[in-house]
């Protein structure tokens, strides 16, 4: 079974949505997935923040158009994509401990239900080394 390792640095709505779509593809393919949530990404994983994320990494001046299109195309939210992927395949979400602390999260219970572990950078690199696919978002 192929393994995907994703470094999720971004906590912006557009990149989180892209990450969710990619996870869905991995889930359809029964891949094993490790997601390592790094600096900005950790903000989105703090408990209660999932619906507060509304900034875009790119084309932020077209945010309204982007959001309207997502809605009219019936695209799931980034959080729903992650939930679906976790239901369908083996997806583990790791929060970088430094990133968590930057946004006020130290313990597992400070993060949303998608989160499996708090980790250090060594685990991310080991996962990337062992993965068939590694991507950084």
């Amino acid at each position, binding site marked *: 079974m192929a393994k995907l390792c994703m470094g999720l640095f971004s906590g912006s709505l557009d990149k989180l949505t892209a990450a969710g*779509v990619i996870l869905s*593809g991995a*889930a*359809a393919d029964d891949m094993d997935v490790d997601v390592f949530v790094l600096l900005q990404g950790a903000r989105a994983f703090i408990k209660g923040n999932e619906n507060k994320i509304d900034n875009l990494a790119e084309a932020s001046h077209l945010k309204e158009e982007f959001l309207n299109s997502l809605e009219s*195309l*019936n*695209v799931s939210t980034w959080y729903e994509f992650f939930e679906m992927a976790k239901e*369908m395949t083996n997806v583990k979400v790791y929060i970088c401990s430094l990133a968590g602390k930057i946004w006020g999260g130290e313990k597992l219970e400070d993060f949303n239900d998608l989160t499996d572990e708090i980790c250090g950078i060594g685990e991310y690199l080991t996962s990337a080394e062992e993965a068939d696919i590694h991507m950084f978002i």
Partner: protein
Amino acid sequence: MTQVELVELAVNKSVDARGTACPGPLLEAKKAIGTISSGDIMEVLSADEGTKRDIPKWANKKGHEYLGTVEESGFFKIYLRKG
């Protein structure tokens, strides 16, 4: 298979994913194929242009047989036989 043969197939499972964009149809196909038996025929209805290429590639990779695609007005019917 010819287009006529495809539309005359006795389908065991029909998945209507016309309401979703990529990756919706692929996810629905993946969920549905788990509910049928080996050798069963499944059709996936999709209005997403990407699905037409995505599902055959996915099916071949997962050991299912891609039988063909019929283009209807505004959507596709993609036929698979579960491996």
